């Protein structure tokens, strides 16, 4: 049966080659858009590792000559700023950081860990960060004010990084390398592990994350670029004005910008989703175009084969058998196109094009999704024409001769 069908398909290779090509490209489009969608869906389901509700970010611009220069006065002012903001009535807790969660930019460094180079995201935060962001410590401990006296630099890492670097081993007390191995500065040791932390937000992929401490009032530490302020639930937006005025009175020639994290989160989501939605719409129209095209071409092909079908009917094939032949032929063609596409697509994990960003389960579901969609698409497109074909009356069909 299969061999016979193959022969039928081969006999019309010119017309079928074009259909095959179309199925092949469509498969690639469905796979691309589908996998991207699944990737973001998979990310969306994972916990963030912090609680953004009722937290406001205050971006502090010290008007310094460059990002790394600061004076002892600025350090002093910054510490006073945090104290004064923390004393305000609607404020629950304040922390300082290098950047706020969901922010567009990122700081990355590639460190030697456990004998390998690992690329990780980092942030420098004050001791109260874990309270403000409600980040859960699962092992070891978070930073303490007393850490300033340590002769080495403490670091808190997230579960992802612990797993990537040390697998099932206990990461506490382990060493993190330096960006530059020749650097004579103090060494870094892991003191705690927090839940998987995803700085870039709900739709971002897995991030390996490390926190370093920032001590307010320490003249060696740059004052925080961002203050994270947890306010009581239900604090009105009007408090922003009071907050700004209070901060301006502490630091007259600095600039402040207050953004609730809810807002940065929304814009982070929108930034990722907008191109995806636009791509999705374009892909949808492409698919619609292809579906209609396939329907038309199959229909046309069948009209041309009326005689052949009539002959089959005349020598005793039932309607159902004709039906089946047409649909199976189409599915065979689809299988060829899909196989061709799958061979191309499988190169992605084989050549490791996207690295760990393309999780195996996402890739597999994307592949299955694309295959199923292609079979559905061609089955639907073949259904109507095959019904028409099976209705051909043998006598009428043969009269064509």
């Amino acid at each position, binding site marked *: 049966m299969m061999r016979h069908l193959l022969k039928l398909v081969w006999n019309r290779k010119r017309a079928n080659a*074009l259909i095959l090509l*179309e199925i092949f490209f469509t498969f690639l489009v469905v796979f691309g858009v589908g996998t991207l969608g699944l990737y973001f869906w998979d990310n969306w389901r994972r916990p963030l590792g912090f609680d953004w509700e009722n937290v406001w970010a205050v971006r502090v611009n010290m008007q310094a000559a*460059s990002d790394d220069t600061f004076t002892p006065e600025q350090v002093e002012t910054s510490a006073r700023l945090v104290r004064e903001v923390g004393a305000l009535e609607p404020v629950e807790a304040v922390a300082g950081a290098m950047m706020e969660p969901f922010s567009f930019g990122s700081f990355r460094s590639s460190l030697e860990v456990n004998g390998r180079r690992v690329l990780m995201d980092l942030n420098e935060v004050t001791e109260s960060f874990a309270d403000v962001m409600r980040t859960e410590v699962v092992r070891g401990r978070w930073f303490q004010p007393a850490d300033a006296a340590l002769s080495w630099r403490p670091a808190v890492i997230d579960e992802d990084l612990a797993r990537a670097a040390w697998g099932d081993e206990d990461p506490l007390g382990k060493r993190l390398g330096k960006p530059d191995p020749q650097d004579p500065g103090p060494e870094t040791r892991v003191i705690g592990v927090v839940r998987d932390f995803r700085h870039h937000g709900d739709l971002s992929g897995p991030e390996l994350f490390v926190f370093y401490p920032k001590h307010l009032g320490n003249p060696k530490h740059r004052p925080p670029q961002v203050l994270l302020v947890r306010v009581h639930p239900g604090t009105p937006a009007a408090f922003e004005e009071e907050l700004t005025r209070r901060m301006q009175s502490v630091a007259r020639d600095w*600039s402040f910008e207050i953004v609730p994290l809810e807002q940065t989160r929304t814009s982070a989501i929108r930034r990722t989703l907008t191109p995806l939605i636009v791509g999705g719409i374009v892909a949808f129209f492409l698919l619609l175009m292809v579906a209609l095209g396939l329907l038309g071409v199959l229909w*046309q092909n069948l009209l041309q084969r009326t005689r052949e079908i009539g002959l089959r009917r005349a020598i005793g094939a039932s309607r159902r058998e004709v039906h089946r032949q047409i649909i199976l032929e189409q599915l065979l063609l689809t299988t060829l196109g899909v196989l061709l596409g799958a061979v191309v697509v499988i190169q992605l994990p084989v050549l490791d094009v996207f690295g760990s960003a393309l999780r195996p389960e996402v890739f597999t579901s994307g592949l299955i999704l694309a295959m199923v969609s292609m079979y559905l698409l061609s089955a639907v497109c073949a259904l109507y024409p095959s019904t028409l074909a099976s209705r051909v009356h043998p006598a009428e069909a043969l009269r064509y001769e």
Partner: protein
Amino acid sequence: MLRNYLKMALKVLARRKFFTFISLFGISITLLVLLVATAMLDQVFAPQQPETRADRTLGIYQVTLRGENSTFNGFAGYGLLDRVVRGLPEELPAVEKVSIFTTPGNAVSYVGGQKIESSLKRTDGAYWQILDFSFVEGGPFTEEDEANARFVAVINESTRDRFFGKVPAVGRTLEADGQRFRVVGVVRDVPILRLVAYSEIWVPNSTAKSRTYRKEYLGNFMAAFLARSRTDFPRIKGAVERRFRLAEEHIPDRQMFQKLDGGADTFFEAVSRVIFGEGEESRPELLWALFLGLAVLFMILPSVNLVNINLSRILDRASEIGVRKAFGASSRTLVGQFVVENVVLTLLGGAIGLVLAAAVLAGLNASGLIAYADLRLNFRVFLEGLGLALFFGLFSGVYPAWKMSRLHPVQALRGRTL
């Protein structure tokens, strides 16, 4: 004769409505996507108000510091740019004007307990001569305002409406980021996609909260040069490149960074420098290749589809061709007929695509999804897209018809295919 062809073409198209619909659908949707995408690119790159002189403007947009182990990619500071551009118009008459200005920052104001966020750009007097803003009222601030650090501001129409309502605002004051400015001019809204021109409030550089910016090597500043003509570009680029080399000696952290990359670019070159040149050199040809590649990738599927549909249509009409041949029609007449048919179909699809694209762009402009978007149709791309559709249409619709028209009428009549 042509009228007959036209009549016939319309009749044929109306006869096979489903096929006609598929072809029209494919052509129009493809053109629609193409037109919307180019409208966006045009908004970023093409000379449009207020950057009408973009074709003779060069800029220093981003700089890269490079050392053994580290690279830094970002905006230059005022100090560095000042070092690079000072005295350039005097040294090189090809440079008409030079301006140094910041990237738009966020400025917060509170008006009657309401929070208003605006983009604020600090700039100088020459900026208003390089760019071509259309003023609704008042005028720009001047180099004198900048020299004397006067707290004056130019705002756009939407900002005026937010602060003062729809009434004239020149002479009134507004508070932004804790500073008070007197409004001297109101301009039409500028699309956010225009990097050099976009802002909502423009104030002099010298009104910055502290003077430290004047010494910054890195910061948030850009520079723009207005050349007398495009032919002067190579000379300006050369002069700027030499001044960059001199500025290398003043890199603040010489231990970490030894090399300063960047230069005077058109905006397209600047983008290609960031994406492909790692900041070191601009590679506009690669950026072109990227855009073209994306367009081709996107159009493969619709083209295959169009070819497929067209082939089916022709095969369907084998017997018609046979009859016409039997009655003495020449191959040329037949081909003429099919050409007219395909042209009519493509033009129809193009017209629908154009109308759809105009509607989508108008919707995007009105929706506020892209702040102050002013997306317009690009008729050159429309014609190119239409040409491509025509090519595939003729290639897939006329060539097989021509081959078939050379068959013997008897065979064609019997419905023999190719």
